[in-house]
């Protein structure tokens, strides 16, 4: 069998529970948004357990015409042998916000690995915020995620990934004790022209993570990708200050992506709440610039 990635070579054994990728482990979630009248709607959804969505809500007071979709898992987290597929399409000039109901827990594994593929397609003038909650990889978790983005030059995608070191305060502290975390994001224009590729592979047992230049003393990493036309990217880049804050123990900065694709914003911190707040601050720069609407204060129960 062909390897999905070389970093998974050591984790090919089959789980004693359900076989990898079998029913109940092969989640599928397909969502399509389009405009209807003066608002956008979730026009199509297809789902297979353990991922599901309910109907779209219009609960964002800053953008009341934007459907908000919460991804829900009925399995309590990602388990060994899981194979998830997600496909999101935003039709011309439609907008949407996709997030998760809670943090994604990747459970401890003793066989195989979990893998996820995401396909995101944005047509002309589309606007999508895909800001899932943080990912918590438990001890010996092995996770491979691959995201392919297809985006029209006039569309905007705000995409974030927040990775924690594990259950930081569980027992004596589960800090970077997972086996492998591999994430690839590839962005292309609709005609397949490549914009950029970012692949990171973290194998804490092979290459220690708490070293200078990698995570140092930090334990939470936020990676935010903003694909947007250059005029928006320039305006937002001018408002983001690169900071190394020694008192509050976080650091963040933005850079222009190759091929005028947009910006990448990276945050590291010692608490997920701090990193989440920085990601939200960045979102609060993006949405007014691109849509003219504001990001309201976060719900107090989030």
């Amino acid at each position, binding site marked *: 069998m062909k390897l999905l*990635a*070389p970093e998974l070579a050591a984790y090919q054994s089959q789980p004693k529970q359900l076989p990898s990728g079998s029913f109940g482990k092969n989640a599928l979630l397909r969502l399509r948004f389009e405009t209807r009248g003066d608002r956008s709607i979730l026009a199509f959804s297809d789902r297979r357990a353990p991922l599901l969505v309910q109907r779209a809500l219009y609960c964002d007071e800053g953008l009341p015409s934007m459907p908000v979709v919460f991804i829900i898992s009925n399995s309590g987290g990602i388990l060994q042998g899981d194979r998830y597929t997600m496909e999101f399409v935003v039709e011309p000039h439609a907008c949407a916000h996709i997030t998760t109901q809670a943090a994604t827990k990747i459970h401890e594994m003793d066989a195989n690995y979990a893998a996820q593929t995401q396909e995101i397609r944005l047509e002309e003038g589309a606007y999508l915020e895909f800001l899932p909650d943080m990912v918590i990889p438990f001890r010996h978790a092995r996770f491979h995620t691959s995201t392919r983005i297809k985006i029209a030059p006039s569309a905007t995608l705000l995409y974030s990934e927040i990775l924690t070191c594990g259950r930081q305060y569980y027992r004596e502290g589960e800090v970077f004790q997972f086996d492998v975390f*591999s994430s690839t994001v590839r962005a292309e224009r609709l005609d397949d022209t*490549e*914009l*950029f*590729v*970012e*692949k*990171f*592979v*973290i194998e804490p047992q092979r*290459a220690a*993570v708490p*070293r*200078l*230049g*990698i*995570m*140092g003393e*930090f334990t939470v*990493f936020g*990676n935010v990708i903003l694909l947007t036309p250059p005029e928006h990217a320039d305006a937002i880049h001018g408002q983001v*200050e*690169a*900071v*190394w804050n*020694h008192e509050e123990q976080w*650091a*963040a*900065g*933005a*850079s*222009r*992506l*190759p*091929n005028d694709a947009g910006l*990448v914003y*990276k*945050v*590291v911190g010692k608490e997920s709440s701090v990193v989440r707040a920085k990601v939200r601050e960045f979102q609060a720069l993006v949405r007014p610039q691109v849509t003219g609407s504001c990001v309201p204060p976060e719900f107090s129960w989030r």
Partner: protein
Amino acid sequence: MMSTMLDQRELMRAEDSSCESFAHLKSAMPTIPALMRVLQFGDSVLPVGAFTFSNGLESAIEQGLVHDLDSLQEFVLVAAEQAASADGIAVLAAYRAAREGDEDRIDEVDRAVFNRKLNEEIRTMTVRMGRKLAEMADRVLDGHDARLASGWLSRIKDGKAPGCYPVGQGLLFASLGLAEQDAFAVHQYGLASMMVAASLRLMKLHYLDAQAVLFAVNCEAAAAYERIARSSLEDMATFAPAIDVLACVHVGANVRMFMN
């Protein structure tokens, strides 16, 4: 340092003695000219502008993260590790494409490197040094040996190829008939020597201690090569969020000695 690198290379060649691709090199390339070429094109004062870059070290020192010999060594070691698992793979891919004379593949590797440089200062560094290397090879190499480098240079000038430095290194070493291990070693050495040279200008450090750091970092190169020698372009990966943020902090810094 150089003798260690060459010993290693000989070792690898010996291990690879069954490999036909190196068999002709042993007979065709006497040791002294080969060594002289490795020395010349692996030299830290090769005029490609390496001295204007610190690869994130200036910010790391400014922020107090790197402040003594141990922290310097850790930081340079991490940077070398990251370079091996990303650009190092590209050096080998470009080298192998050049050995086949496959210019389309060389450009493919070039774009793959460029599209993975998410920080603009790092992008500037790689294409600036790459172009200088192409210009130098075009001028210095003999007619036939210069063919690939000259073609690459004209594609860079026409905007058809980005001109990333590791691609140039692979292409140059293939054109010179040297081994791919030489190209990889020189790539790793170039990065570490650039950072160590910068450290002498940025922090209080004894120049002999700086050499000790370089020596320690170089000891890791053979294992790094073994790890990536069979990797494909798709496997190019990094994970150094702190270095990425430091690079962003550097763009906005008021006082800078280096360009990154």
